[in-house]
């Protein structure tokens, strides 16, 4: 059965974010979920499904953030519960499946971590000795390899990516809770940021964030009785190419975004022309470029022209990552995108609200992406205000 416009995001959970010392990862999950339930106007007893994004190994002697602990501390005994382990981004699809099967009425999805204050150095854990012996560690290197191949395959590079980093920063400067709210970025600042793993600079990398984020999903019928405007899932799709970057041949496209996007657009019955704004998973600047390219916004190598002159910025013709995204607001895996799209469609975004306030179209339909591993999994969600 077509799931178009049958399920909705009805509540959003936020926490303090940025550098927030003396807080466990678990406490951010609990706070985000509790906030999302309250925001939806629900009681904890209404929640009968719980999905947690992966937990990174705990820091400083804290217990691992299992969904059992999360459920216990929120006071839930869910009828269905899961937590993925390796960044496969099926959370929303799973939630819709549980709702569609009649197993649950309200599913909450959460992500939280405390890596900034906890001192996590992403990439220093040996996960595969056949990579570690050659010094291959972390996500930046994998995306650097993809970005390097893309530079060779089509016309891209820092000249394109600077527009993404700087454009998203302008949105963050309008968002009081963004980690980079008070810090502007020029093209010169971008070029002056240090190399991490070349060709990616520090400002091509997403942020490391203490905090949590959550959302509540239910049927459109139930959503109509709740307090916020109804933001429905119009289309959803996923594709998992799965092959590790060291063996992949699609790192310069087509990534999982292509098929995932085709599935979501087919369900929604719309085209790119109907999209008012995008919230694109931005672990790195290049990820934004290749995702939009695979969705069909521009042809390979035409990103440089497409992004220039402020296309994605406040006042631009296709606003992208309007909270600042993971490059400049905060990192919550795919929930940074889903929560911001929902907030925009509900009209709750203050100074950064799409519409007259930012000289952009008042949004009816927003395209969201999520991506995990090194371009190994991709989810597409099209949300609209009913």
């Amino acid at each position: 059965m077509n799931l178009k416009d049958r399920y909705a995001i009805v509540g959003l959970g936020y926490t303090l974010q940025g550098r927030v010392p003396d807080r466990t990862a678990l406490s951010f999950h609990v706070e985000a979920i509790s906030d999302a339930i309250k925001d939806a106007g629900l009681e904890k007893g209404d929640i009968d499904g719980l999905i947690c994004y992966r937990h990174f190994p705990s820091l400083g002697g804290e217990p691992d953030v299992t969904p059992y602990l999360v459920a216990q501390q929120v006071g839930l005994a869910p009828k269905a519960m899961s937590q993925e382990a390796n960044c496969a981004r099926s959370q929303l699809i799973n939630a819709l499946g549980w709702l569609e099967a009649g197993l649950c009425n309200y599913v909450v999805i959460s992500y939280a971590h405390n890596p900034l204050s906890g001192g996590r150095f992403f990439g220093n854990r040996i996960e595969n000795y056949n990579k570690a012996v050659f010094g291959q560690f972390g996500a930046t290197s994998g995306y650097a390899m993809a970005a390097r191949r893309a530079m060779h395959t089509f016309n891209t590079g820092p000249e394109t990516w600077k527009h993404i980093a700087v454009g998203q920063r302008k949105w963050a400067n309008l968002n009081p809770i963004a980690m980079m709210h008070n810090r502007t970025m020029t093209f010169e600042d971008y070029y002056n940021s240090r190399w991490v793993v070349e060709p990616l600079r520090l400002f091509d990398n997403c942020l490391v964030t203490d905090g949590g984020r959550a959302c509540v999903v239910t049927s459109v019928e139930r959503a109509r009785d709740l307090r916020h405007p109804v933001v429905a899932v119009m289309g959803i799709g996923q594709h998992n190419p799965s092959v590790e970057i060291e063996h992949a041949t699609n790192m310069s496209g087509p990534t999982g975004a292509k098929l995932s996007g085709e599935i979501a657009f087919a369900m929604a019955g719309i085209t790119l022309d109907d999209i008012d704004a995008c919230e694109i998973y931005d672990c790195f600047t290049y990820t934004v470029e290749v995702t939009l390219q695979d969705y069909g916004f521009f042809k390979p190598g035409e990103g440089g022209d497409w992004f220039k002159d402020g296309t994605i910025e406040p006042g631009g013709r296709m606003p992208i990552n309007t909270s600042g995204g993971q490059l400049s607001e905060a990192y919550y895996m795919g929930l940074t995108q889903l929560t911001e799209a929902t907030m925009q469609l509900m009209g709750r975004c203050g100074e950064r609200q799409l519409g007259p306030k930012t000289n952009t179209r008042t949004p009816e339909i927003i395209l969201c992406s999520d991506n995990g591993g090194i371009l190994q999994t991709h989810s597409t969600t099209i949300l609209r205000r009913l």
Partner: protein
Amino acid sequence: MVYEKPLPQPNADDKFFWDGCKEHKLLFQKCLSCGLVRWPPSIICPYCHSNDTDVIEAAGKGKIYTYAVYHQAYHPGFESEIPYVTAVIELAEGPHFLSNITGCEPDELECDMPVEVVWEDANKEFSLPKFQPIQ
């Protein structure tokens, strides 16, 4: 001199590969049904699911599919080598193999540059296949 970088931890799937490296041989599984030369190793061919497998010695030549230049170390053993290069080598036989590029400055590299294997003996137990541009 103590070797300070991580060493291979051979498992049941890849022990034959690291045993071959000790003799400076690049050994890969080849599917006898469809001919696919595969890496990483597996008990079946991911393309045709045949378990009829041979082991071949690769010639050690290929080209750089892509590469990354590390300007920070994620493991103390690599600190003295910054900036160092990891690269995916597209071997002539087909597999994409992660390794390092040596004997070349990072800014001289480009994708599709032809390279050949050079062996680095880490210790008595392990030799690592690395690659350098073909002059």
